[in-house]
């Protein structure tokens, strides 16, 4: 799939093919899918745990900025993440 521009007003939800779960043994959030597992870094975990098919990307950025006021370039990072996540088929938009 060619890189599709991410729109701020889009409402993302997790592709039901994947299950997001905290793994104690890995000490991080992971995505589980048929016969596989991806370990998420802290920021990917922070974003994905808020992806519930309710908030738009703009709202997610606001929420995260409120929680991590010291984070710079947060909007850019979040957009970058969704670009990446979409290419990996993690995210669906209704």
């Amino acid at each position, binding site marked *: 799939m060619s890189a599709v521009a991410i729109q701020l007003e889009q409402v993302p939800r997790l592709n039901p093919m994947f*299950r997001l*779960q905290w793994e104690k*043994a*890995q000490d991080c959030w992971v995505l589980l*899918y*048929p*016969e*596989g597992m991806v370990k998420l870094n802290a920021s990917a975990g922070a974003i994905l745990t808020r992806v519930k098919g309710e908030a738009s990307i703009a709202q997610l950025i606001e929420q995260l900025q409120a929680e991590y006021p010291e984070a710079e370039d947060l909007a850019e990072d979040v957009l970058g993440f969704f670009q990446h996540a979409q290419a990996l*088929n993690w995210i669906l938009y209704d």
Partner: protein
Amino acid sequence: MIKPEIASRQPLWLLAELTYKCPLQCPYCSNPLDFAGAGAELTTQEWIDVFTQAREMGAAQLGFSGGEPLVRQDLTELIAAARDLGYYTNLITSGLGLNAERMADFRQAGLDHIQISFQASDEEVNNMLAGSAKAFEQKLKMAREVKAQGYPMVLNFVTHRHNIDRIDRIIELCIELEADYVELATCQYYGWAFENRAALLPTRAQLEKAEAITQEYRQRLQAAGNPLKLIFVTPDYYEERPKKCMNGWGEIFLTVTPDGTALPCHSARMLPIEFPNVKTMSLEEIWQTSPGFNYFRGDAWMPEPCRSCDEKEQDLGGCRCQAFMLTGDMHATDPVCSKSPEHHRILAARQEAELAEEREMTYRNERNSRIFCRG
């Protein structure tokens, strides 16, 4: 399929071979040739205990396989227990013995994924290979039901010289079924498939054509925005370097067989190594300290040419089972490697594949298994 990342030697992947019983008789089955001689199956409680221990050690993926796992009457109970523990649960099945109701029960119990294995897109070839007449129709029906019930759909097509020329039809069928992942895996030559290798191994030309067709479909799917992933697995008989088998011996995989024997890979039972049993040893002990699980860890066991080879980190000398089957020495360099002094055996098998004559296959069933048991 995509393998989990390596952590610090945790059994991330637990394969529970619930039973050796199976209504099919596939000639490429990876079960041991002497399965009819195996001991009593683990009880429900013994299995749940294994799941609990492995989960504490970091296991995240649990595969229910067999034989045919549907034969176990307590399967729903086992799924529920595994899901409660936090596993991602995979059911690996032929689809025989499955119906919509049972599938819904599994869903309710928390089953995450059902993988249905196919032998061909062509009913006739499929039935010939499975030794059963209604198999194909039933599988198709169950594949559709998997999708209808909201499971991710992973289809596994075992390819070999009798069906690989029809790979376009296999892919078309997967698209029609709206699969999410398709594994087009040429069968690996262990267990029953090794006995039948001459009748199963495709020629290089067949393989290259199939791979090219798969690539064409990938491009077409991508252009159409279809997220279906096609995974094409080549048989290592056509490689010059072996695969890093199981990602390393005792690194991330743990198989427990129907009678409780713990193995670092599902075919390791054939090796002349004594493997521990979950009935008499804790999983922690089995994984960390048992001689069986430590046998091929590290590289101290390696003979030449592997020992002084600068590529040994990449493949760890290849597959121990393959080395054993082809050379009689489980320590030997995997003959797939062109540096192996036994590489000619692989070349001979390729040569043999070029001869077109039809061969009789040995079907996997109890009677044939007893024949292998005797020796």
